[in-house]
């Protein structure tokens, strides 16, 4: 009898708890929801509408319907720019993330003056993009650039980095390694969040450096790695500035990235409808990728405080 009563009380309390929990959940995300409705949803839907029209900004828009998308899918440049961007995403992002992890482990060392090195590694993320791009045009210069000076120093021949269609994309990926600072800081915060007690326990159990890294550091760092991966993929699909300033999409369209082509459609040819259709195709691609990543994340991302466990 008593047992029944007890469980009855618990169920009742549990339900109330669930209801307050849901209410508070919506309440806490309410600022975001309001902001989304007021500032974001309208412009997003407007661009979706525009993607079905022909609109040259100064003239009134004309409805063309799905024909816009048919035209887009028959455009060779569209496919080329999608290929260039995919190359940048699928080769650049994993390398970038790996470099950031190495940097984070390095600046996590317990050395005197490590704060100086952390700052130095973050610096390239602070210098203006325009200044960076001018510097890199010179670094990749075939005759006077630092990149070729280095190759010649180790006994190799110089390359036409930004002038060779096969090398331009890899060159821009190499350049992106200079901006690992943000990811490095996030991973560093993740490393510092791992309780020291876990390492102490593992040391008592006789685990070596590799064992501790593999069984403690890496699993507990997966939430930060997952964050970096998702954000880097979303960002890399929108790679633009370097190609816009340094290569203008060349040579031979090898750095015509998706967003550069979209930008030209919008602000050089004033085909805002076409640009909007491109934007929504990219949106769907990135959304599918992100959803897939979240589905797969159950297998490799470990959360100490996971509600579903």
């Amino acid at each position, binding site marked *: 009898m008593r047992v029944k009563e007890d469980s009855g009380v618990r169920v009742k309390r549990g339900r109330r708890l669930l209801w307050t*929990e*849901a209410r508070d959940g919506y309440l806490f995300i309410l600022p975001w929801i309001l902001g989304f409705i007021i500032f974001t949803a309208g412009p997003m839907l407007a661009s979706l509408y525009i993607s079905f029209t022909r609109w040259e900004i100064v003239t009134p828009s004309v409805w063309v319907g799905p024909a816009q998308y048919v035209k887009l899918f028959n455009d060779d440049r569209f496919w080329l720019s999608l290929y260039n961007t995919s190359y940048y995403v699928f080769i650049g992002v994993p390398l970038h993330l790996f470099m950031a992890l190495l940097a984070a482990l390095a600046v996590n060392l317990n050395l005197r003056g490590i704060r100086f090195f952390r700052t130095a590694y973050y610096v390239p993320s602070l210098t203006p993009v325009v200044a960076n791009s001018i510097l890199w045009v010179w670094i990749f210069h075939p005759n006077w650039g630092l990149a070729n000076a280095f190759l010649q120093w180790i006994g190799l021949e110089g390359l036409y980095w930004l002038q060779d269609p096969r090398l331009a994309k890899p060159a821009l990926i190499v350049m992106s390694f200079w901006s690992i600072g943000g990811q490095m800081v996030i991973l560093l915060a993740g490393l510092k*969040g791992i309780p020291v007690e876990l390492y102490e326990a593992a040391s008592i159990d006789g685990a070596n450096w590799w064992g501790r890294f593999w069984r403690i550091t890496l699993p507990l760092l997966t939430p930060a790695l997952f964050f970096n991966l998702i954000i880097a993929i979303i960002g890399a699909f929108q790679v633009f500035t370097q190609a816009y300033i340094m290569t203008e999409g060349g040579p031979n369209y090898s750095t015509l990235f998706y967003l550069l082509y979209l930008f030209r459609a919008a602000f050089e040819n004033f085909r805002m409808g076409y640009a909007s259709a491109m934007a929504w195709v990219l949106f769907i691609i990135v959304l599918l990728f992100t959803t897939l990543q979240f589905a797969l994340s159950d297998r490799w991302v470990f959360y100490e*405080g996971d509600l579903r466990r």
Partner: protein
Amino acid sequence: MQTLRSRAAIEVMLAGFWYLTLSVFALILALPLVWLLSTSLKTGSQTFLMPPKWIPEPIVWSNYSEAFKAVAFHEYFWNTARIVIFATTGTLLTASLAAYAFARLRFPLREPLFLLVLSTIMLPSIVTLIPTFIVFRTLGWIDTFLPLIVPLWFGGGAFNIFLFRQFFMTIPLELDEAARIDGASNLRIYWGVILPLSKPVLATIAVFAFIHNWNDFFEPLIYLQSPENWTMAIGLRGFRGLYSTEWNLMMAASTAMIAPLLVLFFFAQRYFVSGIQMSGLAGR
């Protein structure tokens, strides 16, 4: 004695190895900054000399005073500071609150709503530019700081909500449950349990938001029209066009602009690397 001495020797050598490796990479990664500094001290004609000179000859210190004279730099500084402080505060408060809900409370449609949050940074802003401008014009906010501040008080952006969520999810749920048994409300748990345990990520996002708003070029350019409202990032444009882009002056102004950020980063890192003290949880 012998083993002790050789162990100490190995440790010294190891430290030496690390310092050497770290320094080589620091040198490589600091190239853009060295370039910026060097260009900021050149004469106009030396700026694009090929091959470039790392050490300018002569060293033109007056670029700095000229840059400060050419544009209303200190006015831009105060505008920027005001925007950055209000924008960063809003981001920290509302993004962490939303992230707390997404990380630790159960409610219907939580996962789809979180994907909706992320989806807002997936659509290239080029195509939402004009409609967004129309929204702010309708609100009468053009040429005020409001478009740069108010949206950040409504959620603080997908990047920050996601980053907060990831870190909140690493905190053991037992802490919430213990507080809940003691009768704490969810708001109380967020403020009294989760936030104090999240100092590293709070500091990280504070620094990121500060730097982002400080350097932001695109949005101020669109929404701030009268020169007395300009931020430093768009004030620097003054060296373009009007003076047919004086790169050396622009680099001097850029250096002055990022110097405070360097100092901020250097000193803030002690907060974002202060490891979470899980004392009392060790025996779990």
